[in-house]
């Protein structure tokens, strides 16, 4: 490996490290500033950080690999994310922000618990506990996929063992997260997200128009390899095609239930900021979805016989680009991985702190919160590294599993709590939040996801459980719903 590549990567990593520490300075003065940065973030940091957190190393590794395997069909993800983004940015975001401010909630789980308690005049913590446990349970494998992406990238460029590459990436990323709180995560996300976006736009453009002979020639060659690459349902017809498409649409739609993304709306400065965030979000989704799709397809033409499609982007880069460009692109992949990993780690840490507060029945001082957070960070980081070392074969599949589990737990409940609070009482919320991910995971383990994605039954069961259990247990609550609180949204 050329020293030029190493120099560019090291320079980049050092820059991000320093930036994280500088931005994180003073971030631990209080729990509020550590976890929300005092809600002062403008449109670009909010939008790019939400996008980078959402997209992750998965875009460069999993999504490119999937496009390599299935062709145009992978663009259904774009449709799903466009619709999911619309609901998230144009409908959910302003309510998440205003309600979290109203109830002084620091996180999505905190918001759900506080609003349900306020509406039903209760004081329980079951939603906080269950929500936090679900987050930790699904985020650990989710975080491990980020490290797997890093391991695959490094081991395909540098001649070192995959496990060694994993451990090196893990140690660096955990050390980087250790440096600062939410503020440093947001600002490093901004820089890293912009690099990702640039690469995702430039890489396919240059490859198609300067290496593969133009847009028409590109598609002519692809269809010559396999006409399936230009088919919208990858050969599936009738009910099979429809169920595949519905699965992807709901997959995109449950973006609304991803707390690591919604947290960005909690911390945005004002509504005007959120409107700009929505339009930047459109650009982001376009760049990541179309970019990763075209990169995968370019890879199919340039390297047609890869045993593991998820190596397509790093291998293509290493084989065909000059050293400096390789260094920059590897840095961009690392950027994607670090931005998601650090955001997920923050959400997981916040969840564990919530659990500790409920279990120990006490409030912690600000210094204690910061110290506990750092210890939890180390433990969660080490656990995710251990899962990654268990040889995950597909980043794409594991990310889907975690995404669907978290989505089934939070997306239906958030819609009920924000827009139909009269229809969801504490018990309904608890069972909906529990049964959604249980059904989604069971469906996945049973292998039924080859007929329809596990997110579909997960969301349906969660919605039914929330509504029916709330209806059946209505009489158990002495107080009727607090109508004054509900009048704003229902």
């Amino acid at each position, binding site marked *: 490996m050329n020293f030029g590549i190493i120099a560019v990567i090291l320079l980049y990593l050092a820059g991000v490290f320093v930036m994280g520490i500088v931005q994180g300075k003073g971030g631990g003065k209080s729990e509020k500033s550590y976890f929300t940065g005092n809600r002062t973030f403008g449109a670009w940091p909010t939008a790019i950080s939400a996008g980078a957190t959402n997209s992750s190393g998965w875009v460069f590794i999993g999504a490119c690999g999937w496009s390599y395997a299935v062709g145009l069909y992978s663009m259904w993800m774009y449709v799903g994310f466009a619709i999911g983004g619309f609901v998230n940015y144009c409908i959910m975001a*302003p309510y998440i922000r*205003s309600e979290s401010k109203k109830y002084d909630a620091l996180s999505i789980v905190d918001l759900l618990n506080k609003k349900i308690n306020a509406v039903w005049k209760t004081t329980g913590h079951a939603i906080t506990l269950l929500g936090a446990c679900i987050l930790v349970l699904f985020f650990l494998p989710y975080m491990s996929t980020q490290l797997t992406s890093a391991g695959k990238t490094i081991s395909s460029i540098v001649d070192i063992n995959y496990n060694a590459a994993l451990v090196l990436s893990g140690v660096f990323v955990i050390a980087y997260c250790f440096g600062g709180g939410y503020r440093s995560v947001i600002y490093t996300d901004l820089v890293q997200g912009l690099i990702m976006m640039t690469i995702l736009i430039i890489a396919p453009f240059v490859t198609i128009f300067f290496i593969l002979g133009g847009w028409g020639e590109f598609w002519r060659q692809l269809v010559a390899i396999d006409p399936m690459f230009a088919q919208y349902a990858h050969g599936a017809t009738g009910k099979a095609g429809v169920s595949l498409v519905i699965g992807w649409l709901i997959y995109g739609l449950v973006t609304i239930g991803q707390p690591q993304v919604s947290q960005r709306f909690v911390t945005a400065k004002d509504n005007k900021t959120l409107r700009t965030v929505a339009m930047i979000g*459109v650009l982001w989704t376009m760049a990541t979805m179309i970019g990763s799709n075209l990169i995968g397809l370019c890879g199919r033409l340039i390297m047609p016989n890869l045993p593991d499609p998820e190596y397509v982007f790093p291998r293509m880069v290493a084989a065909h680009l000059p050293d400096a460009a390789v260094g920059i692109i590897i840095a961009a992949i690392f950027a994607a991985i670090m931005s998601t990993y650090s955001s997920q780690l923050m959400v997981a840490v916040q969840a564990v702190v919530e659990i500790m507060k409920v279990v120990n029945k006490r409030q912690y001082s600000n210094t204690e919160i910061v110290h506990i957070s750092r210890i939890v960070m180390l433990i969660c980081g080490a656990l995710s590294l251990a899962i990654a070392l268990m040889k995950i074969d597909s980043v794409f599949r594991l990310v889907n599993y975690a995404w669907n589990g978290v989505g089934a737990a939070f997306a239906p409940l958030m819609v009920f709590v924000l827009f139909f609070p009269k229809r969801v009482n504490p018990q309904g919320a608890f069972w909906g939040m529990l049964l959604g991910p249980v059904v989604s995971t069971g469906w996945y383990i049973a292998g039924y996801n080859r007929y329809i994605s596990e997110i579909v039954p997960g969301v349906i069961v969660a919605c039914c459980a929330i509504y029916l259990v709330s209806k059946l247990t209505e009489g158990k609550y002495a107080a009727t719903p607090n109508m004054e609180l509900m009048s704003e949204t229902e």
Partner: protein
Amino acid sequence: MEIPIMVTIMYIVMPICHVLLFRAGLKYIPWPPEQDETGGGAG
């Protein structure tokens, strides 16, 4: 050989629809009023 029609739809029409959808959403969907620091509606 002509580029398949689905390709044109996926890569050109979809992004345009995406932008139009968001612009319409931001224009016509009502948002809650801004909250002030004490939690009351600022209107």
